[in-house]
């Protein structure tokens, strides 16, 4: 306790509205997360900002509060993070700047529209048409592939990803691994591989920006290489 900080938040009422900055003080304590601080602020009655002015509740997404659902991704001091595992004590300067993820259209404040992620997964035809082929050898890597939260942090740092283009970014490749690996071959696997080349392989510039950013510390590099190996080089 006794840890004070301020949260400077980029706000925007709705799509198309002009963004503005608003700062709130927080005494949530150093062991608290950005998520806990945001919830505490939104629970205040009346809700006032640092200067005592009235403020509207801050719009942001969160559900699990424990790094399991990917809802709370946002930019924290410039870097994409999950608010529920960004601890206030990591930012000793006292000012924490929160912005919405920049690669997706803003819906309101820190809430963005990430539906393109799910659209790409559909376009990539990532599903099985037959029973999963379970190979013990690849169990752990496939397990990691299925852990992806679809949070979008890896897309945020990718120089080649933009919501309007048809490049799926690292998460597409991360997810594709398990499905490709479990597909026993045939027409659908071919279709998936083709879609993969179009939606991932041909668009990735190999800049490696996505390798270290994953909040779950998934083995992103390994998964990209392995997915490429299966979909592009036929393993």
């Amino acid at each position: 306790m006794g840890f004070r900080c301020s949260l400077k938040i980029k706000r925007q009422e709705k799509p198309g509205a002009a963004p503005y900055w608003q700062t709130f003080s927080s005494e949530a304590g150093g062991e608290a997360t950005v998520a806990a601080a945001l919830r505490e602020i939104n629970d205040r009655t009346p809700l006032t900002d640092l200067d005592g002015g009235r403020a509207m509740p801050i719009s942001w997404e969160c559900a699990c509060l424990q790094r399991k659902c990917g809802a709370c991704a946002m930019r924290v001091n410039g870097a994409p993070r999950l608010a529920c595992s960004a601890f206030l004590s990591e930012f000793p300067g006292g000012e924490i700047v929160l912005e919405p993820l920049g690669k997706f259209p803003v819906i309101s404040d820190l809430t963005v529209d990430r539906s393109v992620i799910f659209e790409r997964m559909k376009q990539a035809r990532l599903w099985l048409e037959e029973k999963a082929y379970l190979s013990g050898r690849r169990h752990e890597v496939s397990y990691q592939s299925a852990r992806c939260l679809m949070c979008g942090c890896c897309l945020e740092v990718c120089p080649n990803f933009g919501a309007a283009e048809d490049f799926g970014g690292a998460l597409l490749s991360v997810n594709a691994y398990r499905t490709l690996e479990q597909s026993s071959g045939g027409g659908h696997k071919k279709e998936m591989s083709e879609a993969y080349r179009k939606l991932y392989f041909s668009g990735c510039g190999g800049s490696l920006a996505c390798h270290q950013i994953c909040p779950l510390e998934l083995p992103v590099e390994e998964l990209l290489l392995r997915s490429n190996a299966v979909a592009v080089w036929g393993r």
Partner: protein
Amino acid sequence: MSARAIVVGSGLAGLFAALEAAEQGVPAALISVRPSERAQSVMAEGGINAALGEDDSTENHYNDTMAAGRFLADPNAVCKLTAAAPGIVRRLLDLGVLFNMRGHDEPELRYFGGQKIKRTVFAQSGSGKQIMSAVIQEARKYEARGLITRYDRHAFAGLAVGDNGCTGCSIRKAYSGEMTYLHGSVIIAAGGMHGLFGGTTGSLDNSGAVTAALFRTGVPLANGEFIQYHPTTAAMPGKRLLISEAARGEGGRLFVLRDGKPYYFMEDRYPELGNLSPRDVISREMWSLGEQVYLDLTGLPDEVFRARLSDTLDDCLTHLRIDPRQNPIPVAPGVHYFMGGIFVDENHRTAFPGLYAAGECCCQYHGANRLGGNSLLGAIFGGIAAAHSALADGPQAIGGEYLPPDTEQSAEDRIATQTIVRDALGIARDRAELENGIATLEGLPGSMPLLARAIMTGALERRESRGAHLRTDYLEQNDTGFRKTTVVSYDGGTISARFENIPERR
């Protein structure tokens, strides 16, 4: 127009309901406040039960489920559930779920609470996430075929009700407020009533608002007073962190300090099941001890943390800043699961024709206390069963009236409601607290306080102690009076509770 299934909630129960419809060629609308990846089902860690061991049988699984639920569950429903469990696990394997395996195609089993036999299939300690990833993938196939249509970022608004029951529902898009009116059978799979309490182990999205709106409309609730306090939860900012029962299944031990030394109270007092006694038993023991309890995992091999408790280890390191390999974890009981909810029959029909419910939002399978590992199972089986009933009944004719939506609760009213609920519906209850809770809630507007009053009314009328319901003024279990289902309903003016007989096993 072809029959349409409207599924509210896209966690495990909702996904399986939509899949069941889609597989039969019936288009399903899948509505949820956030995509499936964000549903509470992804948070489940420990695993899913199925009688797959050589020393096990579906009858054993049935017996353990009924006994843990203090014989309040519907025996015919539980019978079907446990019989279906092995097949459900095989189906999950076929969908590509990466359970821990022994040999090539047999899933490994672990010990879980309330069961003497290893019966819990698991994927390290990320079982819910691994299951959800595979099931979401299967649903994606039907989305691409146009048989499942998602309405993410939409909340349930209100039912459409005609002369013969429910004819559809309206949904509201978040932020824009845009309304959509849907016609068809409605399957509710909107999760437990975690928002009544706040600060539970569950997801913030499971507010209980859908259950509250339905109750106000006249849909009865059952067994709402049975609220599971999980014995091993730890304080973290804004919520309780669950330390999965898997930790005890793998050898974790509970103790309190006596003269500076650990006293393993569960092992001493309950030699048969010890640290793996049913959750209600352990939580009650902890409550009566009234001391700080610790969960000791320090004796477990590194390999167990790596291959079987990876998420649990990660949770403790990140959110508690405790290394469970080095230090015991201070734990306390916390609200975790709602055994009661929307009243459904064994085939998941509610009291309104055309309206069904499945998963944690409904009252099925767990009676007075749920066995760990049975709720993922109940969500899957219930989702399928609800869709099955909906398809068999067919949709109601068009023409119901769309009821107006609830207004959202203000932060102030929500906090007030939660405070009253936490005070009156603790592990131990008594008449004065419950009456006081009900009276205080009467001053608060909206459906959530009404739902809270309904649950307190059931708790007040159930003048006995059973499973998760502990009345300090009625400590005994009373089978003649209360081996029955609590049914609470609302007629637009008053809340009333009655006790219905539980069906005999066929």
